[in-house]
């Protein structure tokens, strides 16, 4: 049972960084796409509409993605 729990929780763990990274990735893609379409930087409202996630959650995901990147960067250098 401990093993199963460990497996489930590990999966959950992966999902945290995965889901934040995925959100950050989608926001970055939407930003680029909207910038092309609008000819200017999109606002948070436009981004949030495109990604389907609240403005606050988008900034959390982007900070988390930046953190993960800066934490991992030295490891891969």
């Amino acid at each position, binding site marked *: 049972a*401990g093993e199963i*729990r*460990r497996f489930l*929780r*590990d999966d*959950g*763990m992966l*999902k*945290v960084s995965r*889901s934040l990274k995925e959100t950050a990735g989608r926001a970055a893609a939407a930003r680029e796409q909207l910038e092309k379409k609008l000819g200017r930087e999109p606002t948070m409202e436009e981004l949030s509409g495109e990604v389907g996630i*609240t*403005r*606050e*959650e988008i*900034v*959390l995901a982007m*900070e*988390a993605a930046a953190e993960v990147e800066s934490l991992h960067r030295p490891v891969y250098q």
Partner: protein
Amino acid sequence: MEQTNEMMIEFDSRSCNESFARVAVAAFMTQLNPTLEEVADVKTALSEAVTNAIVHGYENEIKKVTVSCSISGQVLTLTVSDKGVGIADIARAMEPLFTTKPDTERCGMGFAFMEAFMDDVQVKSAVGQGTAVTMKKRIGRIAGEYHD
């Protein structure tokens, strides 16, 4: 060694700040390396307590809501406080389905949700002085897996 870390947020009792409060607490608790589910649980419990402070405590007047947050070992402690009307009968208020605003979209399940999603919920309140709801949750997978 139990390392402790603390933060506090204080904000106007506007419902547009609920989302800010949820994200601030989520950002702080990422230090505990939580699962997605644990973050969602804490956000749900926090939302219920903050909504109560805004809707019941201040009856939609604009005053200050405070959320204190501390991490000790793997335990997250949250206290949501208002200086609003207070609760006369706490035990009754905490009963599932009990609500003093049955006309609105509230359904009397706020405290039940807090108790379901957190390990411990304590309410202190005094009529005319305000309410403080303290909730604890142990974050983390299996004992011994974290170094603290």
